[in-house]
Structures are given as structure tokens and as C-alpha cells.
């Protein structure tokens, strides 16, 4: 018993991720935490997307289930689980069954290397970014399988479209990533890294986020990645695979109930995954703004208040809306529920002011805040842009982003070389 406790507590002093330290217990805990966090994030994202989109479109969005529709995603999840699971008679059973599993597995496995903080990652791999790109590209297989196994025209066309799209944008994405990786090698030893944690530490060491590095080269690479990642996840304006007015729902037209919800889960977690790649590579990962300039005790203190303040702000919004709720007996339960939610958020916020917690939570907070910014962008795109046509999409991928990516890569390499020569002279 004592040995087990010691085994568990021995990790607490380590400065490595549980995967690297080889501590099975903490690795398991982290996996569970990431899984839970991801599920909560997807649920929250579902509600937020509907709400934000609705408010962009002068609607209210879900309002019925729970206060301001807060329980809507849960109601949806229950509905999806209880729904009949339909499989087309002519479908290829095994492949039909496998496809959503592959997509979900690919979408979740990438989170193994996502660094939420210097030690807050399940593991740190030497080939971290390569692993992420590779595993997320596996979801193409699931999509193709789903479209083919449905044995129906619309899903097949949708699957071919989305896989062609994902394969072509992966190229541009890869080039942008390579130019960022190139920047990690600009240190005195001249050794770069593919590890996700290493990339963030390189940004820390060089004193700037890679988006500002070699201005505007980093920015252009980031832009290429930002466009390609929307295309990778089949979201508007690149959502032709799911173009409702043309192909009903694309590759998952024939899916229903639980399997459909797996695709849904995979889509949102893939969005979070690519956003976290972008955050890690260009926006400094878990680093708070100005980690080097504003170091020292006063600013450290101020920045450590941020997570708590954010939660208190959310709680304040809840209370504000509680006051605005209609004063009618019918709304009493909803009002109490909203107030209770506000209290929970407020308590979480208060706990985050407690120094040991605030120190540990800070990295995760900054990382999540940056990812949340990307999530908002996704929703914003969806509310603003019309849909591209397929040939225009391909043109954009191959004729605009690819040459741009190559150019940025060559220029980055050139500038890096020049800087190194000057450095040595």
C-alpha cells in the first residue's frame, strides 16, 4: 500500500509529463481528465455554437431546455442515444460499424501529445507534431469508409469530396507546420524539435510567439494553417462535403442515433485538436502574454488572477441574466437553476484564486483561452461566409495555399540561414 502511494506521489515532484516519466497511474488520470475535459468542451461548444450563431442571426437559439437552453446539449445527447440505430439494408455492416469508431479514435488519440502546460500533457513524444498530423489524417479513412459502406449516392459523393479536400489541404498544412518547426532550430545549438512541448519551450526561449517571428513570415504561415485547418475539419466555408443544399449531410447521411453522435463528437474534437496545433505552433501554447517582459512578482500575481476572474465574470453574466428572467411562477425553476449555475461558476472562480491551484491552473487556462478563441472563429466563419464551390476549393488549396506555403518555407529557411551567418560573424 505504502509503495503504491509512494509510486503515486513520486510523480508530483517530477517535471516531466506522466508518459515520459513512465508513471502509469498519473498517465491514466491525465487520460481520464483529458477525455472528460474534451467531452465537456464538446458539449459546451455545441451549446455555444447554437447560441452565438443564433445571436448573430437575430434569433434566440435554444431557450426551452433549462435556463437559456443550457441543458439543450444534454437533452440532445439523450435523444441521440435513445434513437433507433438505423443501418441501410444494402450497407456493408462491418465497415459501416467500424467507420465512426475510426473517426472518433483518430480524433481523440491526437490529444495524447497536446501540451496543456509544461507538464500537463499525457505524454511528450519526440515526433509529437508528426504524430498529430499523421493520426488526424487517419480520420480520412473513416470518412471514406462511412461514405462507401452506406451504399448510397450522396454519402459516397460526400465522402469522396471531403477526403479529396482533406488530402489536398494536408499538404499546405504540412508546409506551414514545417516552416514553424524550422523556427525552433534557431538557438545556439541549431537543433530543432518536433516535440509539442519542445516547440512551446523554443518560443519561450526565443522570446516571441512564432506568429510574430520574421514578420510577416510567421503570420503568413499561420494564415495558411488557419485556412487549411478549417478545410481539414470540413467546416464552413469549406463544408461542401456536408453542403445541405446539395448533398444533404455528406458522408454521414445514412447514420443515425449513437453512431451519428460519434461523428459529431469527432468533428468537434478534431476542431479542438487542430486549433491546439495552431496554438502550440504559433501562439505560444500555454505561455501567458509577455512571459519574458513582464516577469517578476507583481505581474506574475496579476496574471495568476486571470482564470479566477474569468470564471467570476461568467458567474456575473449568469446572475445578471437571473435578474432579467421573467418574474413568473413558471420560470421559477429555471431562474433557480441559472442562479445555481452561476454560484457553481463563482465557486470555481474563487477556488482558482487559491495560490496552489492558481499556479497549476494557469497554463491550462491560457491554452484553453487561446483554443476558445479559435472555436469562436469557427462559429464566426459559419455565420459569415457562403460556401465555396468544389473546383474553387481545390484551386484555393493547390494554386494559392500550396505555392504560398512553399514560398514561406523557402523564405523562412533563407532568413534563418542569414541570421545564423550574421550571428556567427
Amino acid at each position, binding site marked *: 500500500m505504502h509503495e503504491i502511494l509512494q509510486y503515486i506521489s513520486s510523480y508530483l515532484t517530477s517535471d516531466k509529463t506522466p508518459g515520459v516519466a513512465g508513471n502509469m497511474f498519473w498517465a491514466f488520470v491525465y487520460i481520464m481528465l483529458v477525455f472528460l475535459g474534451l467531452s465537456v468542451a464538446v458539449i459546451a461548444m455545441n451549446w455555444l455554437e447554437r447560441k452565438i450563431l443564433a445571436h448573430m442571426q437575430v434569433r434566440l437559439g435554444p431557450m426551452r431546455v433549462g435556463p437559456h437552453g443550457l441543458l439543450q446539449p444534454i437533452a440532445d445527447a439523450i435523444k441521440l442515444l435513445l434513437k433507433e440505430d438505423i443501418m441501410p439494408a444494402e450497407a*456493408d455492416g*462491418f*465497415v459501416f460499424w*467500424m467507420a465512426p469508431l475510426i473517426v472518433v479514435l483518430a480524433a481523440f488519440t491526437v490529444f495524447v501529445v497536446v501540451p496543456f502546460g509544461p507538464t500537463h500533457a499525457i505524454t511528450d*513524444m*519526440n*515526433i509529437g507534431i*508528426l*504524430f498529430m*498530423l*499523421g*493520426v488526424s*489524417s*487517419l480520420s*480520412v*479513412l473513416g470518412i*471514406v*469508409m462511412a461514405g*462507401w459502406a452506406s451504399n448510397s449516392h450522396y454519402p*459516397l459523393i460526400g465522402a*469522396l469530396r471531403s*477526403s*479529396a479536400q482533406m*488530402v489536398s489541404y*494536408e499538404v499546405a498544412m504540412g508546409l506551414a507546420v514545417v516552416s514553424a518547426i524550422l523556427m525552433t532550430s534557431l538557438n545556439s545549438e541549431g*537543433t*530543432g524539435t*518536433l516535440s509539442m512541448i519542445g516547440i512551446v519551450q523554443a518560443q519561450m526561449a526565443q522570446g516571441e510567439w512564432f506568429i510574430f517571428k520574421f514578420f510577416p513570415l510567421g503570420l503568413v504561415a499561420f494564415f495558411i494553417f488557419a485556412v487549411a485547418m478549417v478545410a481539414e475539419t470540413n467546416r464552413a466555408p469549406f463544408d461542401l462535403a456536408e453542403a445541405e443544399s446539395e448533398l444533404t449531410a455528406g458522408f454521414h447521411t445514412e447514420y443515425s442515433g449513437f453512431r451519428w453522435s460519434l461523428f459529431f463528437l469527432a468533428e468537434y474534437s478534431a476542431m479542438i485538436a487542430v486549433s491546439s496545433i495552431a496554438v502550440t505552433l504559433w501562439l505560444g501554447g500555454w505561455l501567458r502574454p509577455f512571459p519574458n517582459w513582464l516577469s517578476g512578482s507583481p505581474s506574475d500575481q496579476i496574471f495568476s488572477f486571470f482564470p479566477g476572474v474569468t470564471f467570476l465574470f461568467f458567474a456575473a453574466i449568469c446572475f445578471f441574466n437571473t435578474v432579467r428572467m421573467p418574474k413568473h411562477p413558471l420560470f421559477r425553476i429555471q431562474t433557480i437553476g441559472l442562479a445555481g449555475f452561476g454560484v457553481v461558476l463563482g465557486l470555481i472562480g474563487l477556488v482558482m484564486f487559491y495560490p496552489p491551484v492558481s499556479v497549476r491552473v494557469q497554463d491550462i487556462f491560457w491554452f484553453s483561452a487561446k483554443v476558445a478563441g479559435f472555436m469562436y472563429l469557427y462559429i464566426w466563419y459559419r455565420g459569415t461566409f457562403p460556401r465555396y464551390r468544389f473546383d474553387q476549393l481545390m484551386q484555393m488549396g493547390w494554386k494559392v495555399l500550396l505555392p504560398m506555403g512553399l514560398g514561406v518555407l523557402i523564405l523562412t529557411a533563407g532568413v534563418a540561414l542569414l541570421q545564423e551567418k550574421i550571428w556567427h560573424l
Partner: protein
Amino acid sequence: MLIGGIAVITRKNPVHSALALIITLLAQASLYLMLYAPFVAGVQIILYAGGIMVLFLFVIMLVSIDRSIRERQFNSQWIVGIIAATALGGLFIAVYAKGSSIFPQHVLPAVENDNTQKIATMLYGQYMFAFEIASLLLLVAIIGAVVMAKKRI
């Protein structure tokens, strides 16, 4: 992995074959990881599983498969083929049985930390010429594939 391999060559439906092949490839990627070759494993996943197999699936879906499933699956010289393969297998067994002693029983301790860097240095240093030739080969392959698949040249 072997089951996957067997499935590749026995399934009637090419899509099932392709999926079996994917399973084989992923299993092989994990073997690379066990052999302390993480970079090769990554390349295996990205290129093979992500790229080449999607290409295969694409082509299978483009050429209609309904007819070919119902047809005879093995070609007319299959007996000859099996015999030749068996002979080859016998050769392998003989070689390995004879030469098993030359393989060291111990396992080298290996560090994986700078595997990627070392491979990169080697690719751009010692094997520079081969690397360039490989890129040229890929260029030729791109042009060839486009020319072949185009309707009118």
C-alpha cells in the same frame, strides 16, 4: 498483422482488402516504435495509412467493383504461383534455419531522443544524392500519374 496480410490477399471485396492492409500497416508502425524508429513509424502512418491507402480506396470506388466481386478471384496460373511461393518460403526457412546463429541474441540499448535529428542529418548529408534522386522519382511519378489518368492528352 499476419491475419491482416492474409485478409489482404483473400477477401473478395477490394475495399475489405484495403482495410485489412491498413490494419497491417498500422501494426507495422507499432513494430517500428518497438524497434525505436519513431520517425519511420510516423512517416509510415502519414504516408502509407493516410496517403497511399486513401488513394487506393479512391481508385476502388472510382472503378466499379460490383462485377469483379462475382467473378473468379484467382487467375489461371494460381497453382504455379502457389508452387513458386512455397519454394520461396522453403528457401527462407532453409536460410533462417542455417543462419540463425549469426544473429545476436542480445538487444542493443538504444536512445530514441535524437532519432529524428540523426535521420535528418543522414538524409541531407550522406544520402543527399539519393534523396535528390528520390525527389526526381516522385516528380516523374506525379507527371506519369497525371498523364495516365487524364482523359485526353
